[in-house]
């Protein structure tokens, strides 16, 4: 069965600097895949490459069709939602306006109000604060807002960039729990980029490790978790 998202020979550059040197990976339908690695390894760049935010070479296919070279807003409309690093919140707009923007590119206008209700059910704190200016939310709440906004699109694939960054452990655990629920109940596949390897491996089915733009290992996350030498050399625990 063809994967939902597949990349072959992916290279990416910022201007003259090459950051990814031929990375192959795939996300299966309904699965959770994680990309792990140290700072600067190229994880964020990989997600940006999928969304058309950096210059790329190599092929990226989504649901069988090529998406490399397309504009970000067109890729999004195909059903890929990206929760960027730094959350990307519209800080001067209210929580509700942020969510409404998430639904901007939905395939069908019908059912937007139900989606709002579902998001408020997942994230009750957002419902409390819905008229509040988004920039005044705490880090954890902004992360939840970012995820909810992405889900308002009704995507097939969710790209998550370091959701644990800068958040307290309890909040992180909550968010990862929600991600599991979303994957199961909303039938959304997830491509997760993370520095917190243990949490990511617990959540994901499949993992890739990259180092300075090249893949050094891939496999089922259980296998990687159980391999002590890999854990110690690449994941630091």
């Amino acid at each position: 069965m063809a994967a939902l998202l597949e990349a072959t020979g992916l290279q990416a550059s910022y201007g003259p600097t090459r950051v990814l040197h031929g990375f192959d990976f795939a996300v299966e339908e309904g699965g959770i895949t994680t990309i792990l690695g140290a700072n600067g390894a190229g994880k964020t760049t990989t997600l940006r490459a999928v969304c058309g935010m950096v210059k790329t070479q190599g092929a990226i296919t989504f649901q069988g069709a090529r998406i490399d070279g397309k504009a970000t807003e067109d890729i999004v409309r195909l059903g890929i939602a990206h929760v960027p690093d730094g959350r990307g919140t519209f800080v001067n707009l209210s929580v509700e306006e942020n969510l409404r923007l998430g639904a901007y590119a939905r395939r069908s206008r019908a059912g937007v109000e139900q989606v709002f209700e579902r998001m408020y059910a997942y994230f009750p704190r957002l419902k409390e604060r819905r008229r509040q200016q988004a920039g005044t939310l705490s880090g954890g709440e902004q992360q939840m807002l970012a995820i909810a906004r992405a889900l308002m699109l009704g995507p097939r694939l969710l790209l998550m960039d370091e959701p644990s960054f800068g958040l307290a452990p309890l909040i992180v655990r909550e968010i990862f729990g929600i991600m599991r629920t979303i994957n199961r109940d909303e039938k959304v596949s997830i491509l997760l980029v993370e520095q917190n390897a243990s949490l990511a491996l617990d959540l994901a089915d499949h993992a890739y490790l990259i180092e300075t733009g090249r893949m050094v290992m891939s496999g089922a996350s259980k296998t990687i978790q159980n391999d002590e030498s890999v854990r110690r050399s690449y994941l630091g625990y």
Partner: protein
Amino acid sequence: METFLHQVFSGLATGGIYASIALALVMIYQATHHINFAQGEMAMFATYISWSMINAGMPYWAAFFITIVIAFVAGVLIERIVVRPVENSPVISVVIVFIGLLVIINSCAGWIFTYTIKSFPSPFPATPPFGSNLVSFHELGSMAITLGLLTALFLFFRFTPLGLAMRAAAQNPVSSRLVGIRVGWMLALGWGLAAAIGSVAGMMVAPIVFLDPNMMSGILLYGFAGALLGGIDNPWGAVAGGFIVGVLENIAGAYIVGTELKLTVALVVIIVTLVIKPGGLFGRTFVTRV
């Protein structure tokens, strides 16, 4: 006392026009971080188009609304065709392109419509309202129209999905793309709206200052001064600034420097604002919510 009040009302009427131009400038600035130096000329040209239609026999209000539509379309086209290639160029290149636009439009207006001063009709009755000489119907009508326009814009930005998308695109283009907003077209729309606003300002001011190709340069300057005074990042501030500048101009012109130095008043406002409070009266602390 009556003359003073009259000056104030006059000032508010012209202030409404400056407020519209200031708003148009701030909108484009917020969306693109560029100041459109050609804003005045675009408004002037639109007013000439309206004049041509009225001269050809079209009723005033029909010409009014058709002109607004034409101005809107022109604004969109100008952004897509002329401005887009230099979107990411250094500031001086962009400024020069805007200046080039200014010069082209100004020159074409002179060529097509000649430099003879023309009169432009006001849709409002000429007799003073309630027999008083405090304020004319045109001044009242101008204020009503500009306020109505500004209210419509507020409602558009606050309550419609497109307005929300435009605000988002101006504040955070990267995140906007991530929710599927076509940021480039939002910019073009912003230009279209600004051009439409400018055309209304032009049609409101032409009956007062008479129509000629150089009609708007002074008004543009007052619009700038208003926008700067109010805080160039802040649409509400721009509106308030425009009204303040209108009143100031009239009072200063009548009591302090005489009508010949009115433009200098604008220059002084700009310099004083910059020296004392560069962020404008309503600076950055005001949450932008148009």
